[in-house]
């Protein structure tokens, strides 16, 4: 447990992705089976223990500590598990020689009844030190919250055998903790495990961003184009298990099983296949904007009211598998033909094909992207985020290969805003003021904050802004500095963003989607920055995004 505790502790503080991978890989390399496998299961969210609840932990600590001292401590620390881990009364000198291993904890909890749990937890808490207790409580109550995604943990595991993360991803759904066969394969001691899952996730293919100038080097005849919808990229998979039962699952583009959030789509996945597509809300045949789709995200329960008011729909882009045939090595044009035929056979109102954007020359495509309504998207244009270019002859390759697929987003909306506050960043940026709050002028000629951005600038620009912040600070609030923002002195930032929404949480009444700093306008005095009315005009009648 101690090594696992140290790993969790370091991961919780480490901001860098690559450093997190190194820390996990180092742990997996040094720790033996089956401990490391259960640890990997914990990091990928594959474990859950139904009886261990915060209430039980609270009861245990209340029996052992002075209530006034507990209250003062909890108030200071602010987190129940952490408070308990730190103040659990145990004498290091009296501690048992043997601390529980991750395996002890996982295997015991999987069979232990609810009634025995408090006594067992007590024995473990007595045997561990502060960090060990903290890790134990994190493990048993679930919710690691240490900034590690399942994908990241799998990437670290793959690095043990110098494998591509997608190789692990493909076989993952067929694996069970403590993953002995996975480690055997990664360490060259065994064969690659096979995935027996009837509805597995297949690692998604992703696109690179395209600039208009890139078109000169590309031949329009080599490509097909489709709309890039502003929804959720998913993979809808259907198969039949060994007992002949139908299994249908919906995965996010990173392979997370999100079936539970969209149970209303699953009955439509009747035929064995793997569809790559975009999840959208369709009302009266019209694709709704992302703001509408957002109402269905992060819900604990999916009610009938929700599924009626926000009917789910799948726009299919690609077909990766159909009835025993892996189609991923076929050229895109052939897969598209298979997709059309498959959807005709499926004949389901909730799933249809995402239409192609017709063009023969780049200027035609440029025009369609500039005005999707006229370019074929019609009334659905509001949900179009841009266009996708796919080479006709390209196979479906996992990851983000450069060349076969391009995403070409619509031009963002742009405003000029004034830098008001800057906050120090984290990790590599901890000595830089890298998070910026910016504002525009309101009707009373006051600057009101309208958003926050912390990317979009180059490293050199970051240094320039940092220098400006340090030299023009008028107030300090902990890690935040207020910088000068008068009508004639201050820094104007060109801010690009993808959409606007009305917001009651922001003083300005508007909220931006994906704001980023696109240019530094040293040339512009703050008084010439944009006004709140400009933003209000950008909001369309329904409060949704509109083209710039």
């Amino acid at each position, binding site marked *: 447990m101690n090594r696992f505790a140290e790993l969790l502790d370091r991961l919780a*503080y480490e901001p860098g992705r690559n450093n997190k991978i*190194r820390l996990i890989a180092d742990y997996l390399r040094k720790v033996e089976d089956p401990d490391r496998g259960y640890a990997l299961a914990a990091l990928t969210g594959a474990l859950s223990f139904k009886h261990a609840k915060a209430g039980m932990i609270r009861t245990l600590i209340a029996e052992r500590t002075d209530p006034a*001292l507990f209250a*003062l401590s909890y108030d200071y*620390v602010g987190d129940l598990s952490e408070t308990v881990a730190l103040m659990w009364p145990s004498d290091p000198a009296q501690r048992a020689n043997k601390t529980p291993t991750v395996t002890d904890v996982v295997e015991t909890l999987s069979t232990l009844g609810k009634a025995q749990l408090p006594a067992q937890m007590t024995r473990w808490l007595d045997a561990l*030190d502060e960090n060990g207790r903290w890790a134990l409580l994190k493990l048993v109550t679930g919710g690691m919250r240490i900034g590690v995604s399942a994908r990241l943990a799998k990437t670290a595991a793959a690095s043990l055998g110098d494998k591509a993360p997608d190789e692990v991803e493909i076989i993952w759904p067929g694996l069970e903790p403590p993953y002995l066969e996975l480690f055997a394969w990664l360490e060259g001691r065994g064969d690659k495990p096979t995935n027996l899952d009837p509805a597995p996730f297949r690692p998604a293919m992703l696109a690179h961003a395209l600039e208009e100038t890139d078109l000169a080097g590309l031949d329009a005849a080599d490509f097909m184009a489709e709309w890039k919808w502003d929804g959720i990229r998913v993979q809808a998979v259907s198969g039949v298990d060994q007992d002949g039962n139908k299994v249908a699952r919906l995965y996010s583009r990173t392979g997370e099983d999100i079936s539970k959030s969209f149970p209303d789509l699953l009955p439509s996945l009747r035929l064995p296949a793997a569809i790559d597509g975009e999840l959208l809300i369709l009302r009266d045949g019209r694709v709704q904007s992302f703001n509408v789709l957002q109402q269905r995200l992060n819900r604990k329960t999916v009610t009938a009211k929700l599924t009626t008011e926000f009917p789910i729909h799948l726009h299919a882009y690609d077909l990766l598998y159909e009835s025993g045939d892996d189609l991923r090595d076929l050229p895109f044009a052939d897969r598209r033909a298979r997709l059309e035929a498959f959807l005709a056979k499926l004949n389901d109102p909730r799933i249809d094909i995402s239409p192609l954007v017709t063009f023969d020359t780049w200027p035609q495509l440029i025009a369609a992207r500039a005005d999707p309504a006229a370019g074929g998207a019609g009334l659905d244009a509001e949900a179009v985020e841009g266009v996708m270019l796919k080479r006709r002859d390209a196979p479906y390759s996992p990851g983000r290969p450069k060349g076969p697929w391009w995403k070409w987003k619509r031009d963002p909306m742009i405003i000029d805003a004034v830098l008001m506050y800057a906050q120090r960043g984290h990790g590599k940026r*901890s000595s830089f003021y890298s998070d910026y709050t910016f504002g525009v002028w309101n009707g009373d000629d006051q600057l009101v904050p309208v958003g926050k951005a912390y990317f979009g600038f180059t490293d050199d620009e970051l240094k320039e802004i940092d220098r400006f912040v340090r030299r023009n600070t008028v107030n300090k609030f902990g890690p935040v500095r207020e910088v000068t923002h008068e009508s004639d002195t201050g820094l104007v930032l060109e801010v690009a963003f993808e959409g606007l929404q009305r917001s009651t949480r922001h003083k300005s009444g508007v909220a931006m989607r994906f704001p980023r700093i696109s240019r530094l306008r040293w040339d512009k005095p703050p008084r010439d920055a944009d006004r709140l009315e400009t933003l209000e005009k950008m909001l369309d009648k329904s409060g949704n995004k509109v083209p710039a």
Partner: protein
Amino acid sequence: MRPEDILVPTPSGVCCKPGGFHIDPTRPVDKALITHGHSDHARAGHGAVLATQETLDIMRLRYGDNFAGSTQAVAYGETLKLGDTTVSFYPAGHVLGSAQIKVERKGLRIVASGDYKDVPDPTCLPFELVPCDVFISEATFGLPVFRHHDAAGEVSKLLRSVALFPERAHLVGAYSLGKAQRVIALLRAAGYDKSIYLHGAMEKITAYYQSRGIDLGAVEFVRGAKKSELAGTITICPPSAMTDLWSRRFPDPVAAFASGWMRVRARARQRGVSLPLVISDHADWDGLTATIAATGCSELWVTHGQEDALVHWAQTRGMKARPLDIVGYGDEEESENPAPPEGEA
């Protein structure tokens, strides 16, 4: 006789009227007895200062030769007659030269402990238990969540990180008086024999420790070192320097911080630390309560930190206990390490 007939707590420190002196006053007074050299306890501008030789030397290093009208070095265990009182100094185990001060009058013994810790520290004499009737304790870590018993374990965590990330520099934030030298000594005890780099702000105090015979091995200054040379090295710096422009000379630095505050995650996160090291020069909760009980005192005065919890604890044990509201203790970091001017290369 009441304890208050000997020592009276005032907002600017504890005053001994029958002895004609103050202990660790926070404003200039005629005669001051100083427990240790941290700047929240040792200030410049008093008429006469009585302290251990080390504390006087440290004050001179920090404030210059004219930091007091006159000085008198007091040896540990030596007995002084001051007015109507008897005074002696005992090791407090906090930093080099740190002392507890016992004031006795007509059989009533009060010990002002200053800051103290009851665990081994290779850079100073160990804490000496002094039986007394009234004990004046700090409470910097006066909550039962503060437990920092394994400094050596924290240092091995640091060394494991250095081994795992050989291309990065490790910056260890540490107070420049005491903590910095203790961390270096702990690294040596763990077998780390490479050069340890120092921020310029630690130069004088560290050289002073070495001059007092404390073996810290080879230390170098960061000044002038190339970025590439700093990969795989450990540098000790004031905590404030970690977020300063100064830190940009290091290759992808890992921000470590050696402090008792690192026990609590929210505190570590506020400081932007990615490798918290729980190493403290103050007694933790178990140390405070064990020490207080062992002095045999019937009355406890609590000076600074989390007074409420310690006062509550003492009262449940049948002691008389009260917090002293002395303004200005407990910010040794802020007053000790003014950030170097920005833009300093």
